[in-house]
């Protein structure tokens, strides 16, 4: 599936996030975020919170069982734990983003890639997904209790018939992109450490480009809304949440 080209006048913000770095932003309703895999090796790990009530957050189990899926792609919505839709995946040039692999911690990074401290490597030292999430979460008053299963954009984890999980290397490519439309104001916490199942031995996480743009109005027959009756109900709950604005 393709992603549309963006007219420059709709773009409001752009940021380049190198590998093993972080970003956070509040994506307001009516805006969308395009993630682009800059060099084909990115893993964009993402957590979502409601900035007006940080206790409301992206819920992986509800998202997966509501849409009977273990992968995320265009037509899917990312649900909160309050029965609402936070973001819609409106376009995607890949067919699979991973919602079950989780993140690496410092022990796992050391085990896969070896020790590489700041003392020796300066800005190229090894960071884990857990460290990067905790650093960025802390800036919003969030911490370990708020670390939940995330989405790993540009990564693929596939199960066989027996449930064995396999990471698929070389799934993404340079220029791969996915568009996320905010259906409610959403705090996005993003980090670009390697996927925890990525093979070593070289620690070389890829960069992600963020592009925030004004979204088109949501049509009644929007593909995300009509793809599952559950999505229409989640969207109705979100509309009710906005009804007094």
């Amino acid at each position, binding site marked *: 599936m393709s992603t549309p080209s963006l007219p420059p006048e709709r773009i409001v913000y752009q940021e380049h996030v190198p590998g093993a770095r972080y970003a956070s932003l509040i994506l307001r309703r009516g805006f969308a975020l395009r993630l682009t895999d800059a060099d084909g090796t990115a893993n964009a790990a993402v957590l979502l919170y409601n900035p007006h009530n940080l206790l409301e957050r992206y819920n992986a189990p509800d998202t*997966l069982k509501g849409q009977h899926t273990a992968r995320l792609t265009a037509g899917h919505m990312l649900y909160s734990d309050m029965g609402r839709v936070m973001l819609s995946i409106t376009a995607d040039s890949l067919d699979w983003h991973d919602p079950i692999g989780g993140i690496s911690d410092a022990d796992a990074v050391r085990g896969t890639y070896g020790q590489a401290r700041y003392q020796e490597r300066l800005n190229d030292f090894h960071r884990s997904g857990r460290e990067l999430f905790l650093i960025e979460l802390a800036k919003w008053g969030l911490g370990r209790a708020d670390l939940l299963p995330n989405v790993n954009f540009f990564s693929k984890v596939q199960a066989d018939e027996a449930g064995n999980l396999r990471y698929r290397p070389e799934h993404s490519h340079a220029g791969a992109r996915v568009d996320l439309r905010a259906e409610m104001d959403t705090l996005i916490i993003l980090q670009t450490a390697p996927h*925890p199942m990525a093979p070593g031995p070289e620690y070389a996480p890829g960069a992600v480009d963020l592009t925030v743009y004004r979204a088109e109005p949501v049509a009644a027959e929007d593909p995300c809304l009509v793809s599952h009756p559950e999505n229409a109900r989640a969207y109705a709950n979100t509309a009710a949440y906005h009804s007094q604005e």
Partner: protein
Amino acid sequence: MNLVESPLDPCDALSRVTVPAGEPWLGELRRGQTLRIVDLEGNQAADTLFYNLDNPRGERYSAVDTVREQGNAYLSTGSCLRSTAGRPMLTITADTCGRHDTLGGACAAESNQVRYALDKKPMHNCRDNFLIALAESDYGLGKRDIGPNINFFMNVPLTPEGGLSFQDGLSGPGKYVEMRAEMDVLVLLSNCPQLNNPCSDYNPTPLEMIVWK
């Protein structure tokens, strides 16, 4: 399927408690102790969370770390239940059901709306059980401490195409799963009150919790 029976005798147990359908159970399990959850009448969902008893806000059960580190999406005998810090919390030592789900999550008033119908919000649900059990306890835990849980006795297969489906249960009357605590843990269980799901035959039934020293 990995069916393993336990050598333990309920007559030697430290405690035996029946949890009626739709009710929560909060209990402590010391390192080395064994907990058996018995599906007394079959195909009942045991929605379960674990916390490190010494640091419940800082370390709890992690579904994604558990399935990734064992390389398989399902839980059964031999599964190591890992924490958000990557540490072993419990090990499943016996299982006469064969497969348990940890990706499907617990029901909530709000998720019932999305899954079934907007007017299902008033129905009782597992997250309400988690919230009231925590609110009435003194562990200092609340909504932000509720992560993805285990659904013992539930069968939620993944497909190679990336699908996720809800299948008929593999469980039956008297089937059980047994686990040994590898650290002191707090166990928070909701005996699922879900009335919209054919997995429990629309008839929630009791569970038994048996603990050995």
